């Protein structure tokens, strides 16, 4: 694999659209960006004079803060708009919203939306670069990139690793982005969750699917936990928190089945005692806080590359 020299698209809509060389380029650029965070003055002038709009149609704390920090460290002018719900609730179509923002001539729009595909629809009508910060249950590309960055930092590689992804597979955009990324980078993937939360047809994508956590964890180099929303914890998806933890909670005992130097990841926010035992979340396997720190560097890399990748 050769590292790309630039990104082909001016948008980052998903990992699906990237090739391995482009992923490698983002990860290598992120390594340089991470160095900025170690400086006393954590700011470079790269995006000075550029405007970035953070357009959040769904509430978010972590991702939004991470993007804002990344934008500020690159000296971009940023402004944010959070509006929970669809554009239609304001009597406006999605393209109206886009055109309104477009009229203010931003260079980039970082967008989160509860509907899958909303950024793809916007990208067809917008001149600005669109960065998908999570669309419905579809993709969350910067999360997968920061996960990959974190794995690489710890393991030195992605190819050949056994990665277990566990939890609510059906509703997870983190899963979908990671599936694309890990497959492109040559990792082997096992996904695990309750049968009611496995998207139909997943097995056709060349990943191992299991409903037994022990099988998934056994020999894993990386265990990636997915959040399970509270509202799915009773009713027709799952009978109870108690049973979920019993069947799918990641405990220290289960981690003993993994590779000796296995790491545990979580995109946050965690439900302690639901999908993950605190002894694991805070234990020797956990790289969860490193993920958060790396998120800023990876997002700086994405912003920088989409802006054209001029010299820092």
């Amino acid at each position, binding site marked *: 694999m050769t590292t790309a020299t630039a990104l082909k698209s001016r948008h980052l*809509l998903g990992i*699906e659209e990237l090739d391995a060389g482009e992923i490698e380029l983002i990860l290598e650029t992120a390594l340089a960006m991470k160095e900025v965070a170690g400086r006393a003055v954590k700011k470079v002038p790269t995006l000075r004079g550029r405007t970035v709009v953070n357009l959040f149609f769904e509430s978010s704390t972590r991702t939004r803060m991470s993007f804002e920090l990344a934008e500020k460290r690159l000296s971009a002018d940023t402004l944010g708009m959070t509006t929970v719900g*669809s*554009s*239609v609730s304001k009597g406006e*179509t*999605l*393209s*109206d919203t886009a055109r309104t923002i477009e009229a203010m001539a931003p260079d980039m729009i970082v967008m989160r*939306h509860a*509907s*899958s*595909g*909303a950024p*793809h*629809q916007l*990208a*067809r009508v917008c001149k600005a670069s669109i960065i998908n910060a999570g*669309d*419905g*249950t*579809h*993709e969350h590309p910067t999360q997968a990139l920061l996960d990959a960055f974190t794995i690489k930092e710890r393991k030195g590689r992605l190819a050949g690793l056994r990665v277990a992804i566990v939890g609510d597979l059906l509703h997870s*955009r983190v899963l*979908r982005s990671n*599936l694309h990324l890990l497959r492109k980078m040559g990792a082997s993937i096992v996904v695990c969750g309750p049968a009611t939360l496995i*998207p*139909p*047809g*997943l097995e*056709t*994508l060349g990943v191992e699917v299991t409903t037994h956590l022990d099988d998934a964890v056994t020999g894993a180099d990386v265990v990636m936990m997915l959040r399970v929303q509270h509202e799915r914890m009773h009713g027709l998806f799952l009978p109870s928190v108690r049973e979920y933890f019993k069947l799918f909670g990641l405990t220290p005992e289960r981690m003993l089945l993994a590779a000796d130097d296995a790491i545990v990841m979580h995109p946050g926010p965690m439900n302690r005692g639901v999908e993950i035992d605190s002894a694991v979340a805070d234990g020797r396997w956990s790289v969860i806080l490193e993920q958060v720190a790396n998120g800023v560097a990876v997002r700086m890399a994405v912003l920088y590359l989409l802006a054209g990748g001029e010299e820092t």
Partner: protein
Amino acid sequence: MRSMLLKNVHVVDPVASRNGRFDILIEGGKVTRVGRDLPVGDATVVELPQSCVVTPGLIDIHVHLREPGQEHKETIATGTASAVAGGFTAVACMPNTDPVNDHASVTEFIMKRAAEVGLARVYPIGAVSIGSKGEQLTEIGELHAAGCVAISDDGRPVATALLMRRALEYATMFGIPVIDHCEDPSLKGDGVAHEGPVAAMLGLKGLAGAAESIIVERDISVAEMVGGHVHVAHMSARQSLRAVQTGKERGIKVTSEVTPHHFVLTDEALRWHGGYDTNTKMNPPLREEVDRVAMLEGIRDGSIDVIATDHAPHHADEKALEFDRAPFGIVGLETAVPLCLDRLVQAGVIGLARFVELLSVNPARVLGLPGGTIAEGSPADLTVLSPDTDVTVHAASLVSKSKNTPFDGWTLKGAVAATIISGRPVFVNKELQEVVRAFAVK
């Protein structure tokens, strides 16, 4: 009205066992003779290009004309103009208007408007239940007397097995079918795309084929119990086809229709043009290749009776929403014939005679309508096809008020040359100069 002699034209009329060159004499809006070397008399002679094919008027038994109540999407005037531009001499319109066609007064309004417009014939379909709410039967007798040719709660399934039972029992008194939009509401949930790998990876909520076939099977079981004629609207899933096939084998009166988009497209279209084009969102959803192939098989082997469009116009503003919030449906009247000629006839799936069965003979039979054959003494409702002409679909140029089609930019082999209703050419394809000249008033 002047009489007209279509001279030595290629007639495809399977009911009359005609597939060859004949003369058709039209007098007073009716076909008076079909034969060879008919005397011209005082009729105007119409000579069509050799490649043209004259068929009994095509009939689309599943359209949404949106009037009354949703005139921003379509009206009876624009919808029937779209129909004749698409080669259809008659359409049956679904009752999910506002108000719902659950009362004879609504039926009468639709019939009156259609007569004023004077383009395609319009056959209203009445609601099964008041407001299509699934609770109380409509006055089916009154609806039938006012002109309804079938009943349906289309847009929604007939809500319960009991309602289906009563509707079938009651409709038998009038000899009309119950048309069902087959879909189990609990399995459908808030699904927006066919449940399968494509929806899974696009992060779209799934709508499984079984949500359709479970209700198809229910309806067939109910029809087996009480008799009556159940017609499966817009069938899309391979499991449904199997259910219809076995139902027919058991001698149950079940018929079915399929839309062109369900035998032409699959859910892969949801990825096209950057993905999430809301003109690929319809209900039932575009399914996967095995389902598409099954629909072709049903078209070929006769287990599918009818091709209908499910013409579902929506305003561009409504379709400009997020994929999961945009309304279901696409327009179909003006793309159906080119899609069928290209993908079925040109592709060798079926011949022209079967094409006429699917788009004229059987639609008339299923709803008990006049037409379906070019019979002496009947109104001269004819469709003239030009199977060798390439057509490029331009969404913006559609006659329909709405432009929501996934086929924008497609070039297909097979055009409508003219549409004749009661001997009157209500549509002539301007691209075909010879045809324009043939029908020009002399």
